[in-house]
């Protein structure tokens, strides 16, 4: 039986990863619960003044989303590496470039997309004006995709290490900064009534760049991790 072409294989991997994620619902709920908990901490630390909270809300929400994404990025390849599936993936005749996109895509669907969907609720909890909620959603949707792709590089590099948790944050947090800058700036612009299209366009450009370039890095890092 001939090997399926790369797109069909990608869909197969995507389906597999999504089914695996759905069968471990705690893994999907954890980032959302983390988001809710940390959002609830800020009024306790900063005081309950709604004006103050609303002023900080764009930055707060974006930093929490970034940390929630970081928290889960270690899991993208971890279990497949431990049980030998990554070895098999490296030997597959299909290009690794597209296969790793399927892994990262599945990770984005169960973390980033869900965070973006839930973010308006968290925005309201911090008193973010309703007019900024669409910008929050759109910027998170684009931004978390970049975070997943960049996080995938760190995950692939550290997957061979027993405890890669701290190292992965040191490796990829610097790369998260541009996303944070333009993501939170989009939300702030929306609060102040400015157009958000420029920031979203830049996030989209970052996403295009990340989609094209990061699979090369992820594939190379996985090869090194399996080889070591």
């Amino acid at each position, binding site marked *: 039986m001939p090997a399926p072409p790369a797109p069909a294989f990608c869909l197969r991997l995507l389906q597999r990863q999504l089914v695996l994620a759905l069968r471990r619902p705690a893994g999907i709920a954890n980032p959302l619960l983390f988001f809710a908990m940390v959002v609830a901490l800020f009024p306790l630390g900063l005081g309950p003044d709604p004006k103050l909270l609303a002023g900080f809300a764009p930055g707060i929400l974006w930093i929490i989303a970034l940390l929630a994404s970081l928290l889960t990025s270690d899991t993208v390849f971890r279990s497949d590496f431990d049980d030998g599936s990554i070895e098999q993936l490296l030997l597959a*005749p299909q290009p690794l470039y597209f296969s790793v996109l399927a892994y990262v895509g599945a990770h984005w669907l169960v973390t980033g997309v869900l965070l973006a969907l839930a973010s308006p609720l968290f925005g309201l909890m911090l008193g973010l004006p309703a007019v900024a909620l669409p910008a929050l959603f759109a910027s998170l949707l684009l931004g978390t995709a970049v975070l997943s792709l960049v996080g995938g590089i760190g995950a692939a590099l550290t997957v061979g290490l027993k405890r890669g948790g701290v190292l992965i944050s040191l490796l990829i947090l610097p790369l998260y900064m541009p996303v944070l800058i333009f993501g939170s700036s989009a939300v702030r612009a929306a609060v102040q009534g400015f157009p958000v299209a420029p920031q979203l366009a830049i996030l989209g450009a970052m996403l295009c760049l990340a989609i094209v370039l990061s699979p090369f890095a992820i594939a190379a890092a996985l*090869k090194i991790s399996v080889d070591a």
Partner: protein
Amino acid sequence: MSAQGLGLSRGGRELFSELSFSLGAGQLVQIEGANGAGKTSLLRILAGLSHYGFDGSVARNCPLLFLGHQPAVKGLLTPRENLAWHVSGEGDYSQEAIDAALERVGLYGYEEVPAHNLSAGQQRRVSLARLYLSDSPLWLLDEPFTAIDVGGVAELEQQFVAHVRAGGCVVFTSHQAPRTDHPLFRLCLREGLREGLLGEPR
């Protein structure tokens, strides 16, 4: 497939060097050696999973099926799903083919049981079911008999011979000699091995 001048050192100790051989259709090859002799490393080099840290080169011109120490079986998926969505990029197997393969490895009735409820030997069998599905001519199997009971080992040996007779090539590492009357090439890795040509079939 052929290997030219393979050499490997680990921790300052030379495991093997100048290892050259070629493998073709109809060969059944057992790689032997004590623990730490480099059997797994050699197999991973042959499979193309190692890129650095060894001398020589490997040339291969056909698809291969590699089974490593880890079974690559997901505990949250059923055996059926494990094979249907296998990450090795093989063809889309039909439900009937998968069920037939699972029956061959003795997992009839376990098709829909999540694999984490299966024993280590049964999980191993899920990955071995690929031997009954795949049409890759070259099989590289690292310790395929691990955790498999006596009856299962005999069936595996039969499958190896059937594959070799059909024009395939099987390379496996094992400590136990297979009981088969088919000619068996043996590659014995010993410390300081200078050249490891495939000897006469036994």
